[in-house]
C-alpha cells in the first residue's frame, strides 16, 4: 500500500498502516498551549483527574500577551505559571518568544506528531513532522492521555520548482497559493510541498509557508526533511538527531496537484478583510493607499530572514514620517541574532519601535493595536476585520520586504521600487 509522508507519520504513531479517511487514536510526541488557550485546557485536565503524561513533552507558552497589557491577563499568566510548575510542564514565560518559533528552535524533529492549542501549529510541518492545531479541550485530552483521535487527511500536492528571487519571499508564495485555493480550498486536507524548490528554500522560508496552510483550511502542511532541517536542528539544539527520514512513496495518489515556479512569484498582498483576497502588489500599488503602521513580526514573518529583509530595505532609506513601524522578533534568539548582525541598530536608527518577542499586535492585545480607519501592512497571517484590536481598521498582509518598502513610501509599495 503506497503512502504519503503524512500517512506514514500517523501510521508510526498508531502502530498500524493507515490511509486517508481513517479515524485513529494516535500517540502524540508534543502537546502545547499558549496563554489564550491554556486556561481552558487546565480546567479540562483537572476535570479528567489532573494527570499529565510525559510532562517534559508538554509546554505552556506565554506569548499572546507578551508582556501582559491588562490585570486579567497577568492573573491568567500567574495561573498558568503555577499550573505548569504543579504538573511539571515546560513553561516559556513572556519575552521568550512565540510558541511556534520556540517549538522549532527547541523541540520538533522529523517524523514527530505535534499538536497545539493554536491554529498555526501547522508551522512545524516544515520539519517533516505531522503538526496540527486543535482546541483547548482536545489538547487537554492529548496532554493527559498522550493520545488524540484524528481523521487521517488526504493530500494536495504542491510542487515547487526553481528559486525565489528577492524581493519576492516565501510569504508571497504561500499568499499566492491561498489566493488560488481560497479560504476553504484545502479544508481537512494536507498541503504537501514537494519538488526541488523545497530544497532551495531556507528553513525560515519553509516555516513561513507551512505556517499559513491553515488559512486555506488545511489540517497540516508538510515538507519532507533534508540536510537543511538537520543543520537547523544542529545549530539550535547543538545535537544531531538520528531520525527516520520520511518521504512519500513514488506513485502515491494525490487529490490535486498544483505547480509553482518560485522564480516567477511576484510580491503578493492580501487585501482586507480576507486572507484569500490576494492580489499582486503591483496592482494594488496603483490605488495609492496611504498607510499608518507596518508590522514586521509574528510566527509568519518575525524570523531572522524576515528582519534581514526589512533591514535591507530600510538601510539606505528612511521610514515615512506618517508611518509607525513595529518590529517584533519571533524569539529571544532571533532578537539576539538580529542585534549581532546590526539589524536592531538599523531599526532603531531609522525610527522603528521594538516590541518584546511574542505575538505583538497580531491578535489585537498589545504592542501596536490599530486605531479607527487606520491601515496597517503586516507580515502576520490574518487580516480579518478587527483582528488587530479595532473593528474599523484595515490590515494588508505581505512579505517583510513589501511591508518595509511600504513603510518607506508611506503607502502600499512594491519592494522592487525601493531597492
Amino acid at each position, binding site marked *: 500500500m503506497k503512502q504519503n509522508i503524512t500517512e506514514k507519520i500517523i501510521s508510526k504513531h498508531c502502530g498500524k498502516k493507515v490511509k486517508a479517511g481513517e479515524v485513529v487514536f494516535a500517540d502524540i510526541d508534543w502537546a502545547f498551549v499558549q496563554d*489564550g488557550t491554556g486556561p481552558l485546557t487546565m480546567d479540562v485536565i483537572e476535570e479528567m483527574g489532573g494527570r499529565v503524561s510525559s510532562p517534559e513533552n508538554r509546554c505552556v507558552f506565554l506569548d499572546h500577551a507578551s508582556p501582559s497589557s491588562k490585570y486579567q491577563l497577568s492573573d*491568567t499568566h500567574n495561573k498558568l505559571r503555577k499550573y505548569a510548575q504543579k504538573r511539571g510542564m515546560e513553561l516559556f514565560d513572556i519575552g521568550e518568544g512565540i510558541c511556534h518559533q520556540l517549538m522549532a528552535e527547541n523541540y520538533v524533529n522529523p517524523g514527530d506528531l505535534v499538536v497545539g492549542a493554536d491554529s498555526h501549529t501547522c508551522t512545524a510541518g516544515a520539519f517533516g513532522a505531522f503538526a496540527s492545531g486543535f482546541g483547548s479541550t*482536545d489538547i487537554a485530552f492529548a496532554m493527559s492521555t498522550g493520545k488524540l483521535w484524528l481523521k487521517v487527511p488526504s493530500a494536495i500536492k504542491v510542487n515547487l520548482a526553481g528559486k525565489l528571487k528577492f524581493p519576492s519571499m516565501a510569504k508571497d508564495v504561500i499568499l499566492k497559493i491561498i489566493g488560488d485555493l481560497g479560504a*476553504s480550498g484545502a*479544508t*481537512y486536507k494536507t498541503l504537501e510541498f514537494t519538488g526541488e524548490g523545497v530544497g532551495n528554500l531556507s528553513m525560515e522560508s519553509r516555516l513561513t509557508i507551512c505556517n499559513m496552510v491553515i488559512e486555506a483550511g488545511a489540517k497540516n502542511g508538510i515538507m519532507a526533511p533534508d540536510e537543511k532541517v538537520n543543520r537547523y536542528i544542529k545549530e539550535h539544539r547543538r545535537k544531531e538527531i538520528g531520525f527516520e527520514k520520511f518521504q512519500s512513496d513514488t506513485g502515491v495518489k494525490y487529490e490535486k496537484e498544483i505547480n509553482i515556479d518560485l522564480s516567477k512569484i511576484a510580491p503578493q498582498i492580501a487585501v482586507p478583510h480576507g486572507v484569500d483576497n490576494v492580489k499582486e502588489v503591483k496592482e494594488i500599488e496603483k490605488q495609492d493607499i496611504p498607510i499608518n503602521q507596518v508590522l514586521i513580526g509574528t510566527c509568519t514573518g518575525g524570523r531572522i530572514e524576515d528582519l534581514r529583509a526589512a533591514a535591507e530595505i530600510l538601510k539606505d532609506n528612511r521610514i515615512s514620517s506618517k508611518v509607525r513601524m513595529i518590529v517584533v522578533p519571533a524569539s529571544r534568539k532571533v532578537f539576539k541574532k538580529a542585534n549581532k548582525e546590526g539589524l536592531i541598530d538599523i531599526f532603531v536608527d531609522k525610527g522603528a519601535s521594538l516590541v518584546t518577542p511574542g505575538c505583538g499586535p497580531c491578535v489585537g*492585545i498589545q504592542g501596536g493595536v490599530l486605531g479607527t480607519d487606520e491601515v496597517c501592512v503586516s507580515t502576520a497571517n*490574518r487580516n480579518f476585520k*478587527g*483582528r488587530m484590536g479595532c473593528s474599523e481598521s484595515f490590515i494588508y498582509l505581505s512579505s517583510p520586504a513589501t511591508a518595509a518598502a511600504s513603510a518607506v513610501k508611506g503607502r502600499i509599495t512594491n519592494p522592487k521600487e525601493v531597492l
Partner: protein
Amino acid sequence: MKNELTGKVHKFGDNISTDLICPGKYFHLRSDIKKLAKHTLEDADKDFMKKMNKGDFVVGGENFGCGSSREHAPLIIKQSGVGAVLAKSFARIFFRNAINIGLPVLECDTDKINQGDELKVNLKKGVINNLTTDEIMKARPLVDVMYRIVQAGGLKEFLRKEKI
C-alpha cells in the same frame, strides 16, 4: 440537552471567522466567559446580542468558524443562548471545538434559510423544519458519538457521564 430545538434565524454570510465571533480586543475577558459572551459575533453584527433571544439559531454559509483555534468562539455562542449553528460548511477546528463544548452544529444548504425564519430542528435526525417557508430540509446528522457528546453538554461532561 433537548433534541428538538426551536427559534429564529440570524443569518450570516461566508467565512465567519473566529475573530468576528470572539474579537481579539476582548482577549482579556477570556477568563470570564459570561462577560466575553456579551460580545458574541460583535464584529460580524454589532447588534447581534441585542437582537437575539435564547434558543435562536446562527445560520452561516461556507467555512463557518474559520481562523483561530480559540475554543471561546463556540463557547460564547453557546453561552449567549444560541440553540445551534447551521452552515453550508464548517472550518475543521471550530467544528471539533463546538462538539467538544456541546454546541450543536449541523451542515445543510443554508441558502434556503433566511433572516428571521422560524425553525424547528431535530438534532438527532438532522431534520430542519422551516416553519416560515413550510419547507423541510435534511442536514448531515452528527455521527453518533458526536451527537452523544453534544447531548451530554460537551466532552468533559460526556467523559464524566460515561465514567471514562
